[in-house]
């Protein structure tokens, strides 16, 4: 039984960068894509307003924060970790930037850089502790969740900090044509993170570490460095998202971001990323984000109150992940 036919390898820019990713995207995410489609079709019938350009752009803007966090969370979950501290880091990054602008008259670009840098630092701290001490990521980031939340309360004395600088506020409220700026940041981020995960050595190392840590170590991969990098990145992304959100609200909000980590995790899981590590795609995560966003939007349009929305969301997540898992089991059992 000498089977020696090897895969036909087509090499070409179009094939590698366009056709293959698109085909893979549809193949990997067929189930949840159909779910999203079904949801959209149903809502189009239930609410005449749903399928309008205005509403769609609105949904995209609303999901941009969760999309950013979920991008970072995808990397963290693929290496077999978790980050619970994104919500508070988001609040700290944004509030710090707002405070520096309002209270210290620091120029906007510098203030934003500092806000994002603090987020990156706290993320790095997570990564260093996780990789050097072996304390579980869940515990380390749970602690950081408290630390960062406490820090932002201390910094802002528990009060919102209003920002009157128009350039700053524009970053969250501005438009390019009909498209809100936050959507554009998110698109850029999607591209950057996709490149990191799919085109670089680091991306392959991320999968290797999640897929089999021991084998990654034996392959000469510096696991600690990858862990620190991924956590630094998600810290920076969270703080940046906080800056944009604060700019949109004309103020630094120390209470911002409560429960954001759970929405991000839910989106990643909906997108088919495995909690056991080594498996996951950016494309899936984006669809997961959209499912949650469309669901929120639809329930709002249908005037279902937000308490009920939580219940519905919870069940949808359970259902979607259950379908995903049973599909995989079937494939294994065949």
């Amino acid at each position, binding site marked *: *039984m*000498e*089977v*020696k*036919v*090897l*895969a036909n*390898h087509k*090499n070409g820019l179009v094939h*590698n960068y366009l056709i293959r990713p698109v085909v893979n995207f549809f193949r990997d995410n067929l189930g949840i894509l159909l779910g999203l489609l079904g949801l959209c079709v149903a809502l189009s019938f239930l609410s005449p307003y749903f399928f309008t350009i205005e509403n769609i752009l609105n949904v995209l803007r609303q999901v941009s924060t969760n999309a950013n966090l979920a991008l970072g969370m995808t990397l963290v979950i693929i290496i077999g970790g978790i980050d619970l501290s994104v919500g508070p880091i988001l609040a700290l990054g944004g509030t710090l930037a707002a405070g520096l602008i309002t209270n210290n008259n620091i120029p906007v670009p510098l203030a934003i850089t500092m806000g994002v840098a603090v987020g990156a630092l706290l993320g790095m701290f997570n990564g260093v502790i996780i990789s050097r001490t072996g304390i579980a990521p869940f515990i380390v980031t749970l602690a950081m969740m408290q630390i960062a939340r406490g820090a932002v309360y201390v910094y802002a004395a528990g009060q919102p900090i209003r920002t009157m600088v128009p350039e700053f506020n524009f970053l969250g409220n501005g438009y390019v044509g009909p498209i809100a700026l936050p959507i554009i940041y998110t698109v850029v981020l999607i591209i950057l993170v996709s*490149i990191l995960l799919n*085109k*670089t*050595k680091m991306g*392959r190392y991320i*999968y*290797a570490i999640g*897929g*089999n840590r*021991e*084998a*990654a*170590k*034996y*392959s*000469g*991969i*510096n696991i600690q460095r990858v862990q620190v990098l991924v956590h630094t990145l998600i810290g920076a992304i969270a703080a940046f998202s906080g800056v944009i959100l604060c700019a949109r609200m004309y103020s630094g909000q120390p209470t911002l971001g409560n429960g954001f980590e759970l929405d991000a995790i839910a989106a990643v899981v909906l997108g088919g990323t495995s909690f056991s590590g*080594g*498996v996951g795609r950016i494309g899936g995560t984006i669809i997961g984000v959209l499912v949650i966003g469309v669901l929120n939007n639809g329930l709002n349009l249908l005037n279902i109150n937000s308490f009920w929305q939580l219940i519905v969301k919870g069940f949808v997540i359970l259902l979607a992940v259950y379908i995903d898992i049973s599909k995989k089991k079937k494939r294994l059992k*065949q």
Partner: protein
Amino acid sequence: MIEPILLEMRGIHKQFPGVYALNNVAFELRRGEVHALLGENGAGKSTLIKILAGVHSANEGEILVKGRPVNLDSVHTANAYGISVIHQELCLVPEMTVAENIFLGREFQTSFWKMVDYRQINERARKILALCGPELQPEAKVSDLSIAEQQMVEIAKALSINADIIVMDEPTASLTNKEVGLLFKIIKELKEKKMGIIYISHRMEELFEITDRITVLRDGKYIGTRETRNTHREELIGLMVGRELGELYQRNYQETSDVVLEVQNLAKKGVLQDISFTLKRGEILGFAGLVGAGRSELAQVIFGIETFDSGRIYIEQKPVEITSPSVAMSHRIALVPENRKEQGLVLIKSISYNITLTVLKQFVKFIKTDHQKEFNLVHDYVERLGIKTPSIDQQVGNLSGGNQQKVVLAKWLATKPRVLILDEPTRGVDIGAKAEIYALINALAAEGVGIIMISSELPEVINMSDRIMVMHKGSIAGSLIRDEFDQERIMHYATGGN
């Protein structure tokens, strides 16, 4: 006297998508018999066992237990018919006691409050252990036991459900010789009790020692059944492989010259003591010894996985500080680790992904991947090592043991090592793949690679090595040149003689 038939499997067919795993396979087990299932990896042994265990169901065929046709649709049903499988990877809860593990899921309860009745559990466990592990305490924690002792617990578990058909899948794979002796004693006792044992092992010598009959499968087909006392090694290999196998060990000895690796007085507290040796270009240096003698630990130290306390390592006469695997790789040292599934491979990823993991920088520059170069590299190694696969995008977890081992070898050959450390390079690999791996090792030595080969299979070390180091309790107990190679001498050193 011929014992009654305990189990009969007839005309078993099993198809997986694209694969005909079993094609009209028959098997029969008598009371008081040890019946071996023999075949190369991928021959269908595991599938047949899984059908028997109720994990898979056959597409066609008949299974009779004690003459009654049965439908084994779940593990539970299989257990109810007295079938128990002891897997190669033991399934015990490490933090629980021996007794708790034996009765896991079937705890006795006190009549009052329905609490777990530990006294009864321990009492019953003691009775069962008297049969298959008299030295074991029911109250002992499983994590404190050796692998051999854990196996006894598994056997006790099988006995506790009144199993009389016990399947043992590679039970000796991680046992020392002494432990194997103990296991065989237990198996003989089970035979006395008129139980039937299905025994799977790649170690041919064992089959002749313990089994009564041997059934050979090849490519999912039933090839034949032989009485153990009426057959011999060559016949069995012929049946398994289905073709003439050339000389298993191929070795062109040659003059070796310059020293490529030198280790001086290497020590690590409690693990390694005063290890010194040299390795020349093109030389195969065998490391023999018992499990736990420190051979794998030595490999891990040289490769930078583990630290050491004192001593020096020289590469081509220059002292080097190896602080991590990536430093070791920069000195062109490679380690094919002992356990391919845990240390060697990312099983959920493709062949291509795994082979290139060590050499990504050759064709991934920042965000630009040279896919053609990557493909060529992978393709070359798949061809050269004869990795049997429909595609280089095949998930490694779906390959047979031999092919997985070849992928690990490929991954390290791709780094073009000058020092190649092979830790148990043919463990759990079928005989066909073994011969191919030996040929490859021989070819690498001929190219000038210095090779350290750690192996617990004495015939392998003796036939492949230029020199043999024997380790015992973390030190080198003896060093032998080719004229001095001798099984007994090696065992003498390995067990602490001098």
